[in-house]
């Protein structure tokens, strides 16, 4: 049965204020069922307070073949990291 169902990606927010994080995927006939399945499969141990589901087919992913072109050029631009600022003593939580 589940082979006939489309794949959904599941995102769980573990606590209020945090972001939804990808936790895995599952099969379901539609979005409502995907939420129920996600609840049953991924929140059995109080992992979350909110669930998002998304049809896997609706995700557009970058092509691994293009990884060089996409990500290599950032490698030698360390000045983009905010690590060159002197942080004043008084600032504790930056």
């Amino acid at each position, binding site marked *: *049965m*589940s082979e006939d169902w489309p794949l959904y990606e599941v995102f769980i927010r573990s606590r209020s204020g945090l972001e939804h994080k990808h936790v895995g995927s599952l*099969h379901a006939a539609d979005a409502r069922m995907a939420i*129920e399945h996600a609840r*049953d499969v991924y929140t*059995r141990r109080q992992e979350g307070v909110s669930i998002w589901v998304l049809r896997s087919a609706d995700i557009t992913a970058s092509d691994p073949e293009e990884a060089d072109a996409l990500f290599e050029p950032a490698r030698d631009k360390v000045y983009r990291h905010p690590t060159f600022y002197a942080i004043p003593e008084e600032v504790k939580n930056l």
Partner: protein
Amino acid sequence: MSARRDAPNERDAAQQAAHVRYVLRLADTSLVLGQRLGEWVGHAPALEEDLGLANLALDLIGQARLLLTYAGELEGRGRDEDALAFLRDAPDFANLTLAEQPNGDFGHTIVRQWLLDAWQLEIYAGLLRSADTRLGAIAAKALKETRYHHRFSSGWLIRLGDGTAESHERVQAGLDSLWRFTAELFAADEVDERMQAAAITPALMELAPRWSARIDEDLAAATLKRPAAQPYPWHGRRGVHTEHLGHMLAEMQHLQRTYPGVRW
């Protein structure tokens, strides 16, 4: 000469016995239904449904534990939840007859679940205002679980009923075969009357139309036909069970009966 009246202590004893019996009926219905759902583990049509049914089963067994523990305390004979679950024979079980019916196919299981979820929704909501605060607290916890159970079971009922010709036919067959057990759900007997008089439980008469309205609403969405009302020969709550309960208990109680007191 006036009619003989129960002496106060006899009346108290009868009231206490009814109280124990009432809590046991709730407990056993949850326990037996939970055990039945547990039989699906490893056999459900999809991994996700396997977990879903197991979650329902665990909620129900959790309810049964709280209720059995309480029934044991009310009874005052030193029986704990395990003694009540594993060391009673079928005639001492007080579950609704519907709960013990075998799983059948997935549609059959869903119908049984949905009928009882809708029943528990009304019972637990009614118990929130119980004069028995312990029972009210257990009902408050169980009600949250039951709302999800009904969401799950009604969702499937509608999917299957309004699904393919085969799924519709199977779920209608499940409904037709299980409907005869529903008359027991709201048939008040002397235990219910005593509990209602003491404001421990809501009046079943008032809950029945609400249950019925919910059932009709879900059936309409599922394009299923409500079977005709049938006579009421089933008395699981009084300990008169169908043959299925004994077989189920044989499996459920086997370990404790064979190795009394065994732990792991």
